[in-house]
């Protein structure tokens, strides 16, 4: 029986064909993904902490508006890139990122180290009217952020509780006072808080190359 004959068997049996496809296509994923789940647990870097209530709401707005379609958050260990954006990304910096926001496109600049590069005021103006501060910018304006309360649905504690369940080290007290922490904040306040939190972790030895 040669290979073609063996295949003919497969080809005349739908169950075998289904099983064959499942088996053959599963191998690659198992090899690449399983180690990351069971072996190489990534530890957070020293300065990496879960997002505060305000930063978390800001990050969720960043996701909602699709900011990551144009902004990466991943500095690659390439010389020019390190000069432009500072130190390369370290896996430990992303352990509290659900989902990760490394992005695949840089229509605008990388934002992973944008925190405190600009003042809060600059960020606010830039989000409301990007061309007021960057004349040739092609970024959309986000005027509605200013008009809305960040915790309008009163669900920030639910968000933090879900993340706590997934292992983020929030204390019950932090979750209990979250609504008060963000009381009165607009969506604009929250997203600026998030952007200002995107900073390099100075505790990491960058000579290790990030992973």
């Amino acid at each position, binding site marked *: 029986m040669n290979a*073609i004959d063996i*295949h*003919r068997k497969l080809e*005349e049996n*739908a169950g075998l*064909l*289904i099983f064959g*496809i*499942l088996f*053959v*296509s*599963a*191998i*690659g994923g198992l*090899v*690449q*993904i399983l180690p*990351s789940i069971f072996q*190489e647990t990534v530890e957070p870097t020293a300065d990496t902490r879960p997002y505060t209530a305000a930063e978390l709401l800001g990050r*969720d707005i960043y*996701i*909602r*508006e*699709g*900011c990551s*379609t*144009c902004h990466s958050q*991943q500095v*690659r*260990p*390439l*010389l*020019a*890139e390190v*000069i432009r954006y500072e130190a390369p990304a370290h*896996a430990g*910096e*992303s352990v*509290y*990122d*659900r*989902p*990760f*926001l*490394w992005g*695949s496109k*840089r*229509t605008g*600049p990388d934002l992973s180290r944008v925190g405190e590069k600009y003042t809060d005021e600059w960020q606010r103006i830039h989000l409301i009217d990007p061309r007021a501060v960057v004349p*040739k*910018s*092609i970024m959309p304006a*986000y*005027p509605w952020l200013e008009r809305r309360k960040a915790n309008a*649905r009163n*669900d920030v504690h639910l*968000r933090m509780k*879900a*993340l706590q369940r997934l292992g983020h080290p929030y204390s019950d007290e932090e979750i209990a006072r979250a609504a008060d922490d963000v009381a009165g904040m607009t969506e604009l306040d929250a997203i600026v808080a998030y952007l200002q939190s995107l900073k390099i972790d100075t505790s990491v030895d960058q000579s290790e190359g990030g*992973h």
Partner: protein
Amino acid sequence: MKILSSGTYSDRLVSYSVIFSLIWSILGMAAGVYVALELVIPTIDFGQEWLSYGRLRTLHTNAVIFGFGVTALMGTAFYSVQRTCHVELFSPRLAWFCIIAWQFTVLLGGLSLLAGWNAGKEYAELEWPIDILIAVIWVCFGIVFFGTIAKRKVKPIYVSNWFYGALIIVIAMLHIVNSLAIPVTISKSYSLFAGAQDAVVQWWYGHNAVGFLLTGGFLGMLYYFLPKQADRPIWSYRLSIIAFWAFTYSYIWAGPHHLHYNAIPDWVQTLGMVMSIILLAPSWATMVNAVMTVSGAPQKLKTDHSLKFIVLALAFYGLATFEGPMMAIKSVNAVSHFTDWTIGHVHSGALGWNALITFGTFYFLVPRLFNTQLYSKRLADIHFWLAISGTMLYILAMWGAGISQGLLWLSLGDLGELSYGFREIMASMQPYYILRVIAGLVFLSGAVVMIYNFFRTIAGRKTATVQIPAPSTASEQQVTV
């Protein structure tokens, strides 16, 4: 041979899926042109959330992939699986449910994206309630498809069905794993995976959604409609077997090339790169097989519109599956990653391969489904040239933009200082972005011409009833499909 009838095929649902797919193609491509224009004139969102680039761009990708692409795949799978098995669909009612429920799901998904429901993962942006709907419909799709194969009257399972089968199985696996999340509210959930691990899972999904949906699924379409239209059997049956298994095995490994130089382990990146290059072999094996099949009937290429579209699609398939492995080489990727080159690459696949083969297949299907002639061959010709020009212009514009961005970003002066600021590089992209808008408009206008042509073809007509032929012998089946 005397043809004994054993019932009729369920074709009306195929007609509907073609029409739904065409509607999504126009909506999805129009959204694409609009977001392209927003990158030239950013104020045309008029301060409206739902017109904002971040939301509308996501609608564009979802409408073309899940609306246009998947609806076409479902319809053509249902059409071809009946004919290659010589039976009516297993449960036509469930098949109807798949087609109709899928339209509602894509519509709901689109509206939810405009409303800002976004899970934040590329090509998997839809939130958990819609993810569940997708999973349910997908399982029903599988039941109808494999149920039809199970009751087939022809012994061998024809090669197009392996590809459609792989589409159903692998996409189910990818979708379910990548969408695992803890819901917080109806519109918000947090991924079960975090950071680097989430990145590896997401690009395992993202790359293989391209692999098994946009490549494999459409190869199923190719393996049925190309031999059918060329009226020739597949050139090498053996090659189609080898290419299928090599494709199914090796595609899965290539996802990490989306994360070159990112914070994931080096061995994963290197493995992803090597497997991406290996992937060129099965990709091109299929192309060679298809081109050799057509070369048995070259005279048809002069007159047959359906075949012209399919063969052009094949050329872009060859281009994109060569370009992909090249971009997966780390040193090339250092330049191409994060740039518009990626967007160009995606569109040589999406416009050149997926859209063109779907159009070719629809030029085959529409007259047959309604038992009539195409309204105008001249309009089909015009569409053909608009489609080529639009695709070429799009790819050229994005090559220009992407390669400039990549090189200018990395450019250093004599003293090791950056040669150019980010903002000036971004501003210099404008001519390319204008060209892209024009390219998109050209391609879209071709599709509008096609839809008008189809409208005139089927106006006032009903789907024809086609009798199922009596079972033929297995060897004959291999040749005639």
